């Protein structure tokens, strides 16, 4: 293992994050606050409780997940797309590094950034609503797993993308809808039975449900199933990335 290379990529990427720290943090904090005002105050005043939790608190896990998933994806996709775009990828391809090392560096950095933003949003939430976290360790573990798996997805998107439009496309077209329809702002049990069944095909449902369980101890689907879903998704991404490096798909002619 070339640990120096992993660390070098990680630090290089994190430096980009710290250079634009203000932008990186202001926007998620601001949008979260807006969500609290709109959903929590305006809508929440008409919905007392969901599954025994005040609506304001109920949406906190979903909000964090929404940000974390989009941030992890876009950070990682940009992180690997940029060297491709400006041509510095030649260095990664000619260095004594294997796919695991490259992925660990880029995905590790993207996941760290997303985790950081997720935690900042959590802290922001404390200013708006009363929340207690039932299973803090599980909460953190879910958060980290989500950051990593979506950063892996982002890495794939970054390798696949041929231009900046494509880079934005997947997060916009796939992730945002899946997250919104994945029970970020409602409980699946509030939907008609048909929609409940359809929703179960949305992988994000399992992540949000599991994450919410770590806060309130209740969930739409079993926690075991949630864990399985995220592990499966992560394995799928890793497998695909392994294949990318093996075949050189879109990176090595």
């Amino acid at each position, binding site marked *: 293992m070339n640990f120096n*290379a992993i660390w070098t990529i990680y630090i290089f990427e994190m430096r980009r994050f710290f250079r634009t720290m203000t932008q990186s943090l202001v926007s998620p904090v601001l949008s979260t606050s807006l969500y609290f005002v709109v959903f929590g105050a305006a809508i929440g005043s008409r919905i007392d409780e969901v599954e025994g939790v005040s609506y304001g608190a109920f949406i906190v896990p979903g909000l964090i997940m929404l940000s974390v998933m989009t941030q992890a994806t876009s950070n990682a996709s940009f992180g690997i797309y940029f060297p491709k775009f400006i041509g*510095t990828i030649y*260095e990664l391809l000619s*260095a004594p*590094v294997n796919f695991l090392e490259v992925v660990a560096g880029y995905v590790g950095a993207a996941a760290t950034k997303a985790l950081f933003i997720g935690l900042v949003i959590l802290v922001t939430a404390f200013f708006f609503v009363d929340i207690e976290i039932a299973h803090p360790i599980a909460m953190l573990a879910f958060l980290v797993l989500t950051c990593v798996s979506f950063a892996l997805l982002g890495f794939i998107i970054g390798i696949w993308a041929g231009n900046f439009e494509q880079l934005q496309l997947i997060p916009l077209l796939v992730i945002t809808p899946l997250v919104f329809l994945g029970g970020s702002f409602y409980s699946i049990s509030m939907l008609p039975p048909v929609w409940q069944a359809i929703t179960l095909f949305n992988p994000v449902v399992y992540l949000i449900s599991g994450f919410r369980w770590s806060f309130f101890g209740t969930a739409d689907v079993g926690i075991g199933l949630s864990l399985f879903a995220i592990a499966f998704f992560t394995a799928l991404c890793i497998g695909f990335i392994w294949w990318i490096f093996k075949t050189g798909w879109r990176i090595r*002619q």
Partner: protein
Amino acid sequence: MSPIVSVKNLRKSYAGGFEALKSVNLDIEEGEILALLGPNGAGKTTLISTICGITVPTSGTVTVGGHDTQTAFRAARNLIGLVPQEINLEPFETVMNTVSFSRGLFGKKKDDAFVEDILRKLSLHDKKDNKIMMLSGGMKRRVLIAKALSHEPKVLFLDEPTAGVDVELRKDMWDVVADLKASGVTIILTTHYIEEAEAIADRVGVINKGEILLVQDKSDLMRQLGQKQLKIELNEATSRIPDALSAYDLSLSDDGLMLTYSYDTKAERTGITTLLNELQAAGLQLKDLQTAQSSLEDIFVGLVKEKA
């Protein structure tokens, strides 16, 4: 001594089916400067990219320092520094960070003193905290060299290091290459400037259409393939070359005052003495004589034409 880089039957076909390298064989000796000379599209960049791991060979093998670039890619790549043809750099990073990044990527421990030393040798030290985008084209090229040298490679590939660079910078670059050679680094550079190969290489490989046409010591190449020309200035213009001289490779200038005789320096007899005697017999009076050695350029043009 076994060669430090050995390329055997290397073929490369791109996705579209285009064969950019056709069974290339090439051995590079430790410590030498080899210039790969060839026109645009000859396959120079493809050859370098395939040795360095940027493109995957279709068949054939490459070893660097005895390590196969496919099966022992870490050991092989550790020995290689690559300066790409295009100036590919992260614009918002500082010189120091960019060069240190390369060092780390090759698994070397961070060493600011070492990196600063490289920058000093490349006259970049005063720019070490500048962002890349603030640098001139020539300085960016030097940053690429610094990156390639940051992990102490034994073999350095320079892909067209002086393409689009003005004359002064080109001379600068030649000095840099000479210094690197003196420090024991093996250098392979590609160029389509003959004068560049002539000026700095120990050996010259000529590549065209994916094939290496020849690899030779620069001076041997010039000696063996070099044609010399004897220019014979006449006292009085003549309208045609006398029939008696038809056996010689002669050409007459438009004004009829200059005969040019081309001869092979490697031939046993150059034919100069008999030619001069026969000129006299034909009644032509000589005013002056001079000889000229053909440049690598003439050799190259001849080779490419021959094989086409």
